[in-house]
């Protein structure tokens, strides 16, 4: 059973998914961050594959991508760091990245590597559903890898249904029309959207991301979905001075309180 299905079978509320960029702040922080996040109580972890042109990301994640690339991060390096990760970390792991580095690595090779190291799902914001279904779905299925789709307040009901039908694991609900880290709150005009999605009774769990930064926004998101995803706020927290593990546990505690 895919670890994500297992997670949502056991836990339907307040699921916390934390994003960090591989290779940031230091090239070899990946396993330290993964372990510290699990110990601190993250239910699911999303690892960003750095890219030179991350168009869906705001300044915080862009900068972390730039630093990570300068540090020498690549898919090859990342997979080697994750080689024995399943001896140490048991929460589901999702890779998030843009399609070009993965296509250069080779999609089939990428899916095989994900299976080998124990990655459960992938989020590729610039891979259209149509291309996925047409070109890559069989490779994903062969390697037991889930492809997570995004929906936004502008996504029509018909398309949300289509996303639900073609999704496994969970659906990533982008909270508002924005890039990552652009907003630090969830506002009232999103409640229509949240209610609309809730009333559709989707077969997949939903996690709300973009604009979730602290306990208050996490709670608000959890009223409207099975949980939430935090990215930019976490990157900011680990960018500060201090011991990495302590910063991570402090941040996760402050969000979950």
């Amino acid at each position, binding site marked *: 059973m895919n670890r994500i299905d297992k997670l949502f079978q056991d836990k339907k509320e307040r699921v916390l998914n934390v994003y960090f960029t591989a290779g940031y702040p230091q090239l070899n922080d990946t396993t330290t961050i993964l372990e510290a996040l699990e110990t601190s109580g993250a239910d699911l972890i999303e690892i960003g594959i750095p890219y030179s042109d991350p168009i*869906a990301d705001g300044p915080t994640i862009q900068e972390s991508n*730039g630093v990570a690339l300068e540090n020498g991060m690549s898919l090859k390096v990342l997979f080697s760091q994750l080689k024995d990760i399943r001896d140490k970390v048991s929460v589901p792991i999702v890779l998030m990245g843009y*399609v070009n*580095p993965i296509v*250069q690595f080779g999609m089939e090779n990428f899916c095989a590597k994900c299976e080998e190291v124990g990655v459960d799902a992938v989020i590729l914001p610039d891979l*259209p559903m149509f291309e996925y279904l047409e070109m890559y779905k069989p490779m994903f299925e062969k390697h037991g890898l889930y492809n997570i789709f995004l929906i936004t307040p502008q996504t029509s009901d018909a398309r949300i249904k289509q996303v639900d039908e073609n999704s496994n694991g969970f659906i990533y609900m*982008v909270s508002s029309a924005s*890039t990552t880290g652009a907003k630090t709150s969830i506002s009232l005009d999103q409640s229509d959207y949240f209610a609309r999605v809730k009333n559709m009774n989707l077969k997949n769990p939903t996690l709300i991301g973009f604009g979730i930064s602290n306990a208050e926004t996490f709670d608000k998101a959890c009223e409207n979905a099975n949980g939430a995803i935090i990215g930019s706020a976490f990157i900011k927290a680990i960018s500060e001075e201090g011991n990495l593990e302590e910063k991570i546990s402090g941040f996760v505690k402050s969000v979950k309180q």
Partner: protein
Amino acid sequence: MKVQVDERGYYGNFGGAFIPEMLYPNIEELRENYEQIVQAPDFQKQFNHLLRDFVGRPTPLYLAERLSEKYGAEIYLKREDLCHTGAHKVNNTVGQILLAQKLGKQKIIAETGAGQHGVATATVCALMGIECIVYMGKVDMARQKPNVERMRILGAEVRPAKSGSKTLKDATNEAMRHWINNPTDTHYIIGSVVGPHPYPEMVARFQSVISKEIKAQLLEKKGKQNPDYVIACVGGGSNAAGAFYHYYNEEDVRLIAVEAAGLGNQTGHSAATTVLGKPGVLHGSKTLLMQTEDGQVIEPYSISAGLDYPGIGPVHAHLFETGRAKFYSVTDEEAMKAGILLSRTEGIIPAVESAHAFAALNQMTFNPSDVVVINLSGRGDKDLETYIKWGKY
């Protein structure tokens, strides 16, 4: 094989719409509506009226006699340099501003490299009284200062793109991010035949007036519509797509695309995508792309800011792959010399981008009876600094 876009937005193996879900409704809205809007008689009437009375079309097709003599062929220049604002870019912005109005959009964003597309966008926004924001790499703002001020005089806000390498590719990233954050009231006027479907075909169609006029003008001058060669420079590829468009499927016309080789293709300072690129995805389409082994986009280099882009439009990747167009690349030095040659033989100072197309003549051989059309995509006023700095005249 016919050169045309299929309903999924592909030219052969290249194209598509690789966009985050946040942009899906915008792109769908465009895709579903643009053909109908553009083909409607009232749109055509307004578009043609503005092209004639505002842009100054048709632009002349001029027989360059002294240049012809030098190269031993009959060389005609398609004078896009005489368009209002000084380059072909305005053909596209006139089309897209009318489209934006029909779609009910109140704000315009654009990216720009050399500033020509930014100026052309700011110009049509001023004409229509629409708010305009242009993203421009911080590095480009410094090297194209007069165009920054032109945009500001026209009432546009110029926002520096400070991410990445701070040039055209990053300005495009910033414009896309802006669109993600403002999806409903804003139209993004992309400046070349790049981006997600339907942009590449839409921009090519607005630029196709170039080859439509060449056909009519050659018929009048020579009694035939088809030359032996059409030559154009390629940054993203909009002036080339416009000059090639009505010749895509006329096999007797040889299509010549000229890329910028910067300091030389082997120096690590070039922008010749077909020489140095591999298939990849950038700014919403699958195309040829300069990138590292790990799939990170490489920053190109050219003396000409308008050719300084790591990709080419998907239609050009297709023309290259199928061999329908032949690609040459030209160094900074060769282009600058060709710019001076044109200035001295014909009394026309070309844009440094366009000078690349002329430099390719040195790599070609002609029969005396060959009819050659070179798309003179823009004038050199904006490049005086570059000519002065280069200095060898």
